[in-house]
Protein backbone atom coordinates (compact mmCIF):
# COMPACT_ATOMS: atom_id res chain seq x y z
CA UNK A 1 0.00 0.00 0.00
CA UNK A 2 2.94 2.32 0.47
CA UNK A 3 4.77 3.80 -2.47
CA UNK A 4 3.60 6.32 -5.03
CA UNK A 5 0.21 4.79 -5.67
CA UNK A 6 -0.50 4.55 -1.97
CA UNK A 7 0.36 8.20 -1.54
CA UNK A 8 -1.83 9.21 -4.48
CA UNK A 9 -4.67 7.19 -3.04
CA UNK A 10 -4.19 8.85 0.33
CA UNK A 11 -4.34 12.31 -1.23
CA UNK A 12 -7.52 11.32 -3.04
CA UNK A 13 -9.10 9.99 0.13
CA UNK A 14 -8.05 13.07 2.05
CA UNK A 15 -9.77 15.36 -0.45
CA UNK A 16 -12.95 13.30 -0.39
CA UNK A 17 -12.97 13.31 3.40
CA UNK A 18 -12.46 17.04 3.66
CA UNK A 19 -15.12 17.76 1.09
CA UNK A 20 -17.45 15.38 2.80
CA UNK A 21 -16.98 17.12 6.13
CA UNK A 22 -17.70 20.44 4.51
CA UNK A 23 -20.92 18.95 3.31
CA UNK A 24 -22.20 22.25 1.94
CA UNK A 25 -19.25 22.48 -0.36
CA UNK A 26 -20.00 19.19 -2.04
CA UNK A 27 -23.28 20.64 -3.12
CA UNK A 28 -22.41 24.18 -3.85
CA UNK A 29 -21.00 23.83 -7.36
CA UNK A 30 -24.09 21.79 -8.08
CA UNK A 31 -26.44 24.28 -6.50
CA UNK A 32 -24.81 27.13 -8.32
CA UNK A 33 -25.38 25.26 -11.56
CA UNK A 34 -29.01 24.76 -10.67
CA UNK A 35 -29.55 28.36 -9.65
CA UNK A 36 -27.96 29.87 -12.72
CA UNK A 37 -30.04 27.71 -15.04
CA UNK A 38 -33.18 28.67 -13.17
CA UNK A 39 -32.35 32.35 -13.21
CA UNK A 40 -32.43 32.39 -16.97
CA UNK A 41 -36.05 31.55 -17.51
CA UNK A 42 -36.77 34.23 -14.92
CA UNK A 43 -34.75 36.82 -16.78
CA UNK A 44 -35.69 35.86 -20.32
CA UNK A 45 -39.33 34.97 -19.92
CA UNK A 46 -41.06 31.65 -20.05
CA UNK A 47 -41.70 31.05 -23.78
CA UNK A 48 -40.73 27.47 -24.61
CA UNK A 49 -39.52 28.11 -28.14
CA UNK A 50 -37.10 30.83 -27.11
CA UNK A 51 -35.91 28.77 -24.18
CA UNK A 52 -35.26 25.77 -26.36
CA UNK A 53 -33.07 27.86 -28.64
CA UNK A 54 -30.85 29.03 -25.82
CA UNK A 55 -31.00 25.90 -23.65
CA UNK A 56 -27.72 24.25 -24.78
CA UNK A 57 -25.86 27.51 -24.38
CA UNK A 58 -27.33 28.28 -20.97
CA UNK A 59 -26.62 24.80 -19.62
CA UNK A 60 -23.04 24.87 -20.79
CA UNK A 61 -22.34 28.39 -19.58
CA UNK A 62 -23.80 27.47 -16.20
CA UNK A 63 -21.66 24.33 -15.98
CA UNK A 64 -18.61 26.32 -16.92
CA UNK A 65 -19.25 29.04 -14.35
CA UNK A 66 -19.94 26.49 -11.63
CA UNK A 67 -16.64 24.76 -12.37
CA UNK A 68 -14.78 28.06 -12.45
CA UNK A 69 -16.09 29.07 -9.07
CA UNK A 70 -15.29 25.77 -7.47
CA UNK A 71 -11.67 26.16 -8.60
CA UNK A 72 -11.08 28.51 -5.68
CA UNK A 73 -11.42 25.59 -3.33
CA UNK A 74 -8.95 23.41 -5.14
CA UNK A 75 -5.81 24.68 -3.43
CA UNK A 76 -6.77 27.73 -1.39
CA UNK A 77 -7.50 26.21 1.99
CA UNK A 78 -4.47 23.93 1.82
CA UNK A 79 -2.41 26.95 0.98
CA UNK A 80 -3.64 28.99 3.90
CA UNK A 81 -3.17 26.37 6.56
CA UNK A 82 0.26 25.35 5.30
CA UNK A 83 -0.66 21.85 4.06
CA UNK A 84 0.44 22.69 0.55
CA UNK A 85 3.85 23.75 1.75
CA UNK A 86 4.12 20.33 3.34
CA UNK A 87 2.99 18.63 0.17
CA UNK A 88 5.91 20.22 -1.66
CA UNK A 89 8.12 18.30 0.70
CA UNK A 90 6.67 14.93 -0.18
CA UNK A 91 9.05 12.25 -1.37
CA UNK A 92 6.92 11.73 -4.47
CA UNK A 93 6.60 13.90 -7.59
CA UNK A 94 4.38 16.88 -6.95
CA UNK A 95 2.54 16.46 -10.23
CA UNK A 96 1.25 13.06 -9.11
CA UNK A 97 -0.12 14.55 -5.90
CA UNK A 98 -1.69 17.38 -7.86
CA UNK A 99 -3.26 14.94 -10.25
CA UNK A 100 -4.94 13.13 -7.35
CA UNK A 101 -6.26 16.38 -6.01
CA UNK A 102 -7.68 17.38 -9.37
CA UNK A 103 -9.26 13.98 -9.85
CA UNK A 104 -10.94 14.11 -6.44
CA UNK A 105 -12.13 17.62 -7.13
CA UNK A 106 -13.73 16.59 -10.38
CA UNK A 107 -15.44 13.60 -8.79
CA UNK A 108 -17.01 15.99 -6.32
CA UNK A 109 -17.97 18.82 -8.66
CA UNK A 110 -18.00 17.93 -12.36
CA UNK A 111 -19.39 14.44 -12.08
CA UNK A 112 -22.50 15.24 -10.02
CA UNK A 113 -23.14 18.20 -12.25
CA UNK A 114 -23.11 16.04 -15.37
CA UNK A 115 -25.40 13.51 -13.71
CA UNK A 116 -27.89 16.15 -12.64
CA UNK A 117 -27.99 17.97 -15.95
CA UNK A 118 -30.86 15.97 -17.53
CA UNK A 119 -33.27 17.33 -14.92
CA UNK A 120 -32.37 20.90 -15.72
CA UNK A 121 -32.45 20.22 -19.44
CA UNK A 122 -36.07 19.21 -19.14
CA UNK A 123 -36.78 22.43 -17.27
CA UNK A 124 -35.28 24.38 -20.14
CA UNK A 125 -37.36 22.50 -22.71
CA UNK A 126 -34.40 20.78 -24.33
CA UNK A 127 -35.66 17.95 -26.59
CA UNK A 128 -35.32 14.47 -25.13
CA UNK A 129 -33.11 13.22 -27.93
CA UNK A 130 -30.41 15.76 -27.03
CA UNK A 131 -30.11 14.70 -23.41
CA UNK A 132 -27.70 11.86 -24.04
CA UNK A 133 -25.37 14.18 -25.86
CA UNK A 134 -25.66 16.74 -23.06
CA UNK A 135 -24.53 14.26 -20.42
CA UNK A 136 -21.80 12.91 -22.67
CA UNK A 137 -20.47 16.34 -23.52
CA UNK A 138 -20.40 17.33 -19.86
CA UNK A 139 -18.66 14.10 -18.87
CA UNK A 140 -15.94 14.79 -21.41
CA UNK A 141 -15.85 18.54 -20.98
CA UNK A 142 -15.92 19.17 -17.24
CA UNK A 143 -12.71 17.22 -16.45
CA UNK A 144 -10.97 19.29 -19.11
CA UNK A 145 -12.26 22.44 -17.46
CA UNK A 146 -11.02 21.34 -14.04
CA UNK A 147 -7.63 20.33 -15.42
CA UNK A 148 -7.08 23.58 -17.30
CA UNK A 149 -8.42 25.59 -14.40
CA UNK A 150 -5.97 24.07 -11.93
CA UNK A 151 -3.17 26.10 -13.49
CA UNK A 152 -4.60 29.58 -12.85
CA UNK A 153 -5.89 28.35 -9.50
CA UNK A 154 -2.34 27.47 -8.53
CA UNK A 155 -0.90 30.65 -9.99
CA UNK A 156 -3.15 32.98 -8.05
CA UNK A 157 -2.52 31.53 -4.61
CA UNK A 158 -1.60 34.18 -2.11
CA UNK A 159 -2.05 36.83 -4.76
CA UNK A 160 -4.04 39.95 -4.05
CA UNK A 161 -7.57 39.48 -5.33
CA UNK A 162 -6.88 35.84 -6.11
CA UNK A 163 -10.46 34.57 -6.12
CA UNK A 164 -11.88 36.54 -8.98
CA UNK A 165 -8.59 36.76 -10.80
CA UNK A 166 -8.93 33.04 -11.48
CA UNK A 167 -12.06 33.61 -13.53
CA UNK A 168 -10.33 36.31 -15.50
CA UNK A 169 -7.43 34.06 -16.36
CA UNK A 170 -9.37 30.92 -16.99
CA UNK A 171 -12.47 31.91 -18.91
CA UNK A 172 -10.68 32.86 -22.14
CA UNK A 173 -8.93 29.49 -22.05
CA UNK A 174 -12.27 27.75 -21.74
CA UNK A 175 -13.77 28.99 -24.99
CA UNK A 176 -12.99 25.96 -27.18
CA UNK A 177 -14.57 23.56 -24.72
CA UNK A 178 -17.59 25.81 -24.39
CA UNK A 179 -18.05 26.19 -28.12
CA UNK A 180 -17.87 22.50 -28.92
CA UNK A 181 -19.82 21.41 -25.88
CA UNK A 182 -22.71 23.72 -26.61
CA UNK A 183 -22.52 23.00 -30.33
CA UNK A 184 -22.70 19.26 -29.72
CA UNK A 185 -25.89 19.64 -27.72
CA UNK A 186 -27.42 22.09 -30.17
CA UNK A 187 -26.56 19.82 -33.09
CA UNK A 188 -28.19 16.79 -31.58
CA UNK A 189 -31.23 18.86 -30.61
CA UNK A 190 -31.53 19.66 -34.32
CA UNK A 191 -30.45 16.86 -36.64
CA UNK A 192 -28.70 14.68 -34.09
CA UNK A 193 -25.79 13.83 -36.32
CA UNK A 194 -22.91 16.26 -36.30
CA UNK A 195 -22.65 15.84 -32.55
CA UNK A 196 -20.30 12.85 -32.84
CA UNK A 197 -17.59 14.99 -34.40
CA UNK A 198 -17.94 17.55 -31.63
CA UNK A 199 -17.79 14.94 -28.93
CA UNK A 200 -14.62 13.42 -30.31
CA UNK A 201 -13.05 16.88 -30.37
CA UNK A 202 -13.96 17.26 -26.70
CA UNK A 203 -12.24 13.93 -26.09
CA UNK A 204 -9.12 15.22 -27.82
CA UNK A 205 -9.11 18.33 -25.64
CA UNK A 206 -9.37 16.11 -22.58
CA UNK A 207 -6.39 14.03 -23.65
CA UNK A 208 -4.34 17.16 -24.27
CA UNK A 209 -5.29 18.66 -20.91
CA UNK A 210 -4.46 15.41 -19.12
CA UNK A 211 -1.01 15.44 -20.59
CA UNK A 212 0.01 18.97 -19.69
CA UNK A 213 -2.16 20.31 -16.87
CA UNK A 214 -0.80 18.33 -13.89
CA UNK A 215 2.71 19.26 -14.88
CA UNK A 216 1.91 22.93 -15.46
CA UNK A 217 -0.03 23.28 -12.25
CA UNK A 218 2.66 21.69 -10.13
CA UNK A 219 5.16 24.10 -11.66
CA UNK A 220 2.74 26.89 -10.81
CA UNK A 221 2.47 25.70 -7.22
CA UNK A 222 6.22 25.79 -6.81
CA UNK A 223 6.28 29.34 -8.06
CA UNK A 224 3.45 30.40 -5.76
CA UNK A 225 5.11 28.93 -2.70
CA UNK A 226 8.56 30.30 -3.48
Amino acid sequence: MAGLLGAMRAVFVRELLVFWRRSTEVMTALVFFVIVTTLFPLAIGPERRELMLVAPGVLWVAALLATTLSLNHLFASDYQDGSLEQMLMSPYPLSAMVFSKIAAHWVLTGLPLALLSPLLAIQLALPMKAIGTLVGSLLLGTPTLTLIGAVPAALTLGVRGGGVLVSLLVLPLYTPVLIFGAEAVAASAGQGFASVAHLSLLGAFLALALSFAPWASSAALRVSLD
Partner: protein
Amino acid sequence: MKLVHKYGAPKRFYELAGTVVPWLAALTTVLMVVGLYLGLFWAPRDYQQGNAYRIMFVHVPNAWMSMMAYVAMAVFAAAGYIWNMRLADILAKVTAPLGASFTLTALVTGSLWGKPMWGTYWVWDARLTSELILFFLYVGYMALQASIDDARRAAHASAILAIVGAVNVPIIHYSVYWWHTLHQPASLTLTNQPKIYITMLIPLIMMSLAFTFFYLTMLCVRARSEILWRERNTDWVRKLVGSRT
Protein backbone atom coordinates in the same frame (compact mmCIF):
# COMPACT_ATOMS: atom_id res chain seq x y z
CA MET B 1 24.47 30.49 -25.34
CA LYS B 2 27.46 32.37 -24.05
CA LEU B 3 26.67 35.20 -26.39
CA VAL B 4 23.15 35.32 -25.08
CA HIS B 5 24.45 35.61 -21.56
CA LYS B 6 26.90 38.31 -22.51
CA TYR B 7 24.29 40.51 -24.17
CA GLY B 8 21.52 39.22 -21.95
CA ALA B 9 22.87 41.05 -18.94
CA PRO B 10 20.41 43.85 -18.25
CA LYS B 11 23.21 46.39 -18.06
CA ARG B 12 24.55 45.53 -21.51
CA PHE B 13 21.10 45.56 -22.96
CA TYR B 14 20.43 48.93 -21.42
CA GLU B 15 23.44 50.40 -23.20
CA LEU B 16 22.83 48.59 -26.47
CA ALA B 17 19.18 49.59 -26.58
CA GLY B 18 20.15 53.15 -25.75
CA THR B 19 22.17 53.39 -28.92
CA VAL B 20 19.61 51.80 -31.26
CA VAL B 21 16.51 53.56 -29.96
CA PRO B 22 17.09 56.83 -31.88
CA TRP B 23 17.56 54.94 -35.13
CA LEU B 24 14.49 52.81 -34.61
CA ALA B 25 12.45 55.85 -33.70
CA ALA B 26 13.62 57.71 -36.80
CA LEU B 27 12.80 54.76 -39.03
CA THR B 28 9.37 54.44 -37.46
CA THR B 29 8.59 58.09 -38.00
CA VAL B 30 9.65 58.08 -41.63
CA LEU B 31 7.70 54.94 -42.45
CA MET B 32 4.66 56.18 -40.58
CA VAL B 33 4.61 59.58 -42.28
CA VAL B 34 5.19 58.22 -45.77
CA GLY B 35 2.78 55.34 -45.26
CA LEU B 36 0.05 57.63 -44.00
CA TYR B 37 0.59 60.09 -46.82
CA LEU B 38 0.41 57.39 -49.43
CA GLY B 39 -2.53 55.74 -47.74
CA LEU B 40 -4.58 58.87 -47.24
CA PHE B 41 -3.79 60.80 -50.42
CA TRP B 42 -2.12 58.59 -52.99
CA ALA B 43 -4.20 55.43 -52.85
CA PRO B 44 -7.35 55.71 -54.91
CA ARG B 45 -10.88 56.03 -53.54
CA ASP B 46 -12.59 52.69 -53.27
CA TYR B 47 -15.53 52.41 -55.66
CA GLN B 48 -17.67 50.60 -53.10
CA GLN B 49 -16.64 51.96 -49.73
CA GLY B 50 -15.63 55.47 -50.58
CA ASN B 51 -12.97 56.85 -48.28
CA ALA B 52 -14.04 54.81 -45.28
CA TYR B 53 -11.77 51.97 -46.31
CA ARG B 54 -8.71 54.10 -45.52
CA ILE B 55 -9.08 53.08 -41.91
CA MET B 56 -7.61 49.81 -43.15
CA PHE B 57 -4.13 51.31 -43.10
CA VAL B 58 -4.32 51.50 -39.35
CA HIS B 59 -6.57 48.53 -38.70
CA VAL B 60 -4.80 45.77 -40.55
CA PRO B 61 -1.24 46.45 -39.27
CA ASN B 62 -2.54 46.60 -35.72
CA ALA B 63 -4.42 43.34 -36.15
CA TRP B 64 -1.29 41.66 -37.44
CA MET B 65 0.89 43.11 -34.70
CA SER B 66 -1.55 41.99 -32.01
CA MET B 67 -0.86 38.38 -32.95
CA MET B 68 2.87 38.78 -33.51
CA ALA B 69 3.23 40.41 -30.11
CA TYR B 70 1.59 37.44 -28.41
CA VAL B 71 4.02 35.05 -30.02
CA ALA B 72 6.92 37.29 -29.02
CA MET B 73 5.61 37.50 -25.45
CA ALA B 74 5.24 33.74 -25.10
CA VAL B 75 8.72 33.12 -26.49
CA PHE B 76 10.30 35.68 -24.17
CA ALA B 77 8.38 34.31 -21.22
CA ALA B 78 9.39 30.73 -21.92
CA ALA B 79 13.04 31.70 -22.32
CA GLY B 80 12.91 33.60 -19.05
CA TYR B 81 11.34 30.70 -17.21
CA ILE B 82 13.48 27.91 -18.61
CA TRP B 83 16.89 29.60 -18.59
CA ASN B 84 16.22 31.99 -15.74
CA MET B 85 17.09 34.98 -17.92
CA ARG B 86 16.08 38.22 -16.34
CA LEU B 87 16.24 40.15 -19.59
CA ALA B 88 13.73 37.80 -21.22
CA ASP B 89 11.41 38.26 -18.23
CA ILE B 90 11.59 41.98 -18.71
CA LEU B 91 10.96 41.81 -22.45
CA ALA B 92 7.92 39.57 -21.92
CA LYS B 93 6.55 41.89 -19.29
CA VAL B 94 6.84 45.02 -21.41
CA THR B 95 5.50 43.30 -24.51
CA ALA B 96 2.15 42.57 -22.87
CA PRO B 97 0.80 46.13 -22.65
CA LEU B 98 2.06 46.86 -26.16
CA GLY B 99 0.29 43.80 -27.53
CA ALA B 100 -2.84 44.67 -25.62
CA SER B 101 -2.88 48.15 -27.10
CA PHE B 102 -2.41 46.79 -30.62
CA THR B 103 -5.34 44.48 -29.97
CA LEU B 104 -7.47 47.25 -28.57
CA THR B 105 -6.66 49.50 -31.52
CA ALA B 106 -7.55 46.73 -33.96
CA LEU B 107 -10.85 46.21 -32.13
CA VAL B 108 -11.73 49.89 -32.04
CA THR B 109 -10.75 50.68 -35.62
CA GLY B 110 -12.49 47.51 -36.77
CA SER B 111 -15.68 48.52 -34.97
CA LEU B 112 -15.54 52.00 -36.43
CA TRP B 113 -15.09 50.48 -39.85
CA GLY B 114 -17.89 48.04 -39.18
CA LYS B 115 -20.48 50.78 -38.73
CA PRO B 116 -20.36 52.02 -42.35
CA MET B 117 -19.69 48.54 -43.75
CA TRP B 118 -22.11 46.33 -41.86
CA GLY B 119 -24.38 48.89 -40.29
CA THR B 120 -23.36 47.83 -36.80
CA TYR B 121 -20.37 48.15 -34.55
CA TRP B 122 -20.12 44.48 -33.74
CA VAL B 123 -20.95 41.09 -35.17
CA TRP B 124 -19.85 37.75 -33.83
CA ASP B 125 -17.62 37.04 -36.74
CA ALA B 126 -14.87 34.47 -36.18
CA ARG B 127 -12.01 36.92 -36.59
CA LEU B 128 -13.58 39.50 -34.37
CA THR B 129 -14.34 36.96 -31.70
CA SER B 130 -10.87 35.51 -31.58
CA GLU B 131 -9.37 38.99 -31.48
CA LEU B 132 -11.58 39.77 -28.48
CA ILE B 133 -10.45 36.61 -26.70
CA LEU B 134 -6.86 37.51 -27.44
CA PHE B 135 -7.50 40.81 -25.71
CA PHE B 136 -8.78 38.98 -22.63
CA LEU B 137 -5.66 36.83 -22.61
CA TYR B 138 -3.47 39.92 -22.60
CA VAL B 139 -5.52 41.49 -19.83
CA GLY B 140 -5.25 38.32 -17.75
CA TYR B 141 -1.51 38.21 -18.21
CA MET B 142 -1.13 41.83 -17.17
CA ALA B 143 -3.46 41.41 -14.22
CA LEU B 144 -1.40 38.50 -12.95
CA GLN B 145 1.83 40.44 -13.38
CA ALA B 146 0.34 43.41 -11.57
CA SER B 147 -0.91 41.45 -8.62
CA ILE B 148 2.37 39.83 -7.64
CA ASP B 149 4.93 42.27 -6.42
CA ASP B 150 7.99 40.10 -6.15
CA ALA B 151 9.51 40.55 -9.61
CA ARG B 152 10.93 37.07 -9.94
CA ARG B 153 7.77 35.36 -8.78
CA ALA B 154 5.65 37.53 -11.03
CA ALA B 155 7.82 36.67 -14.01
CA HIS B 156 7.68 32.94 -13.36
CA ALA B 157 3.97 32.84 -12.65
CA SER B 158 3.01 34.82 -15.71
CA ALA B 159 5.43 32.81 -17.83
CA ILE B 160 3.51 29.66 -16.98
CA LEU B 161 0.30 31.43 -17.92
CA ALA B 162 1.77 32.64 -21.20
CA ILE B 163 2.95 29.15 -22.09
CA VAL B 164 -0.39 27.56 -21.29
CA GLY B 165 -2.00 30.35 -23.30
CA ALA B 166 0.31 29.69 -26.22
CA VAL B 167 -0.80 26.06 -26.30
CA ASN B 168 -4.37 27.28 -26.28
CA VAL B 169 -4.28 30.18 -28.70
CA PRO B 170 -4.21 28.07 -31.87
CA ILE B 171 -6.96 25.87 -30.49
CA ILE B 172 -9.08 28.90 -29.66
CA HIS B 173 -8.40 30.39 -33.05
CA TYR B 174 -9.46 27.33 -35.01
CA SER B 175 -12.41 26.49 -32.84
CA VAL B 176 -13.78 29.96 -33.31
CA TYR B 177 -13.41 29.61 -37.06
CA TRP B 178 -15.06 26.25 -37.06
CA TRP B 179 -17.82 27.46 -34.79
CA HIS B 180 -18.56 30.16 -37.25
CA THR B 181 -18.64 28.00 -40.36
CA LEU B 182 -21.25 25.77 -38.81
CA HIS B 183 -23.74 28.58 -38.68
CA GLN B 184 -25.25 30.33 -41.60
CA PRO B 185 -22.71 32.94 -42.58
CA ALA B 186 -23.21 36.40 -41.16
CA SER B 187 -24.59 38.99 -43.52
CA LEU B 188 -21.15 40.23 -44.49
CA THR B 189 -17.74 38.74 -43.91
CA LEU B 190 -14.25 40.00 -44.24
CA THR B 191 -13.39 37.39 -46.82
CA ASN B 192 -15.39 38.62 -49.76
CA GLN B 193 -13.31 41.72 -50.00
CA PRO B 194 -12.57 43.12 -53.40
CA LYS B 195 -9.06 42.22 -54.53
CA ILE B 196 -6.55 44.68 -53.22
CA TYR B 197 -4.97 47.00 -55.80
CA ILE B 198 -1.24 47.44 -55.82
CA THR B 199 -1.75 51.13 -55.00
CA MET B 200 -3.47 50.09 -51.81
CA LEU B 201 -1.01 47.32 -51.08
CA ILE B 202 2.11 49.49 -51.00
CA PRO B 203 0.88 51.87 -48.30
CA LEU B 204 -0.45 48.88 -46.38
CA ILE B 205 2.94 47.21 -46.37
CA MET B 206 4.63 50.44 -45.38
CA MET B 207 2.25 50.91 -42.49
CA SER B 208 2.81 47.35 -41.37
CA LEU B 209 6.55 47.90 -41.31
CA ALA B 210 5.99 51.16 -39.50
CA PHE B 211 4.03 49.43 -36.74
CA THR B 212 6.63 46.67 -36.50
CA PHE B 213 9.36 49.21 -35.91
CA PHE B 214 7.09 51.10 -33.58
CA TYR B 215 6.83 47.92 -31.53
CA LEU B 216 10.60 47.46 -31.50
CA THR B 217 11.16 51.07 -30.47
CA MET B 218 8.67 50.90 -27.67
CA LEU B 219 10.04 47.54 -26.57
CA CYS B 220 13.49 49.05 -26.14
CA VAL B 221 12.25 52.21 -24.44
CA ARG B 222 10.03 50.40 -21.99
CA ALA B 223 12.56 47.67 -21.30
CA ARG B 224 15.15 50.33 -20.51
CA SER B 225 12.98 51.99 -17.92
CA GLU B 226 11.98 48.64 -16.45
CA ILE B 227 15.65 47.70 -16.15
CA LEU B 228 16.44 50.96 -14.39
CA TRP B 229 13.63 50.37 -11.94
CA ARG B 230 14.56 46.80 -11.16
CA GLU B 231 18.23 47.49 -10.78
CA ARG B 232 17.67 50.70 -8.85
CA ASN B 233 19.72 49.41 -5.93
CA THR B 234 22.77 48.38 -7.97
CA ASP B 235 25.91 50.39 -8.23
CA TRP B 236 25.77 51.06 -11.94
CA VAL B 237 22.30 52.55 -11.81
CA ARG B 238 23.21 54.65 -8.79
CA LYS B 239 26.22 55.93 -10.66
CA LEU B 240 24.18 56.59 -13.79
CA VAL B 241 21.48 58.47 -11.93
CA GLY B 242 24.05 60.24 -9.83
CA SER B 243 25.87 61.51 -12.90
CA ARG B 244 22.64 62.89 -14.32
CA THR B 245 21.53 64.81 -11.27
